[in-house]
């Protein structure tokens, strides 16, 4: 039977038990397109991610971007897969609040044989761009549980 990519990722992202890091940043799937390679998701950071200024520490902002960008790179491959990040650059445009709903978008920019290029965006619910990132990663088949 042919691999049903849509059903596989629908199950993994919406109904599967999230990995610890995914749960920590409050990931919640909104929508995805496995053919175009994009995903929309909501996040909510816990108090534990607070920096001295009362907002989110940069690494936890990076963690949300890494989630949606890795998903975009994974779903764009042919079978069950992941996309380990090689390098990622994040611009912190505005403070990211703790405990509020944040909208994340991950997109595949280019799928090559041995490399994937992705980008990601975090926005507030009123549409302000809070952070953006680009990354390079490698395609890798993976048997998900």
């Amino acid at each position, binding site marked *: 039977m042919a691999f049903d990519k849509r059903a596989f990722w629908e199950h993994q992202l919406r109904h599967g038990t999230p*990995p610890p890091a995914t749960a920590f940043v409050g990931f919640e799937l909104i929508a995805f397109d496995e053919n175009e390679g994009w995903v929309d998701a909501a996040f909510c950071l816990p108090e534990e991610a607070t920096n001295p200024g009362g907002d989110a520490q*940069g*690494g936890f902002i*990076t963690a949300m971007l890494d989630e949606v960008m890795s998903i975009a790179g994974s779903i764009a491959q042919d079978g069950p897969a992941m996309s380990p990040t090689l390098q990622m650059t994040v611009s912190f445009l505005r403070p990211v609040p703790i405990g509020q709903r944040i909208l994340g978008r991950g997109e595949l920019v280019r799928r090559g044989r041995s490399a994937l290029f992705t980008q990601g965006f975090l926005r507030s619910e009123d549409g302000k761009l809070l952070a953006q990132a680009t990354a390079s990663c490698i395609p890798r088949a993976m048997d998900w549980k």
Partner: protein
Amino acid sequence: MLARFQGSKKRPPCSDTLGMKLIEVEQDAMRIRMEFDVSPSFANPTGAVQGGFISAMLDEAMSTCVIIASNVTMTAPTLEMKTSFLTRLMPGQAFVEARILRLGKSAAFMEAECSTPDGKLVAKATATAIPMPFKRLG
């Protein structure tokens, strides 16, 4: 300076979350070293630490480095940060060394390296930040 930070009761939540401990300070060289106890709650589907949380440790070290180099007069919100992930890191002990390349009036340039207890390089980051008087962030 080391004692002052280690004895601080005003640690931000992110420092405790990452299990951060400042272990070395070379104030004149604008260099610090931190130890982290990385929680299994930061694992990705493979069981390794998700990249963002490695970035969190690197950011923590680079930001603290500015605070210490400025003699606790300045903080430096990160503008942009680039991280290379050389190999995977499993939850547990990790070390980060951060240096300031330049601390100017309107910009700061930092770099940091994360390594395993046996010295294997896990990740390397560079970042830019804007130094601001410490009190403005309360």
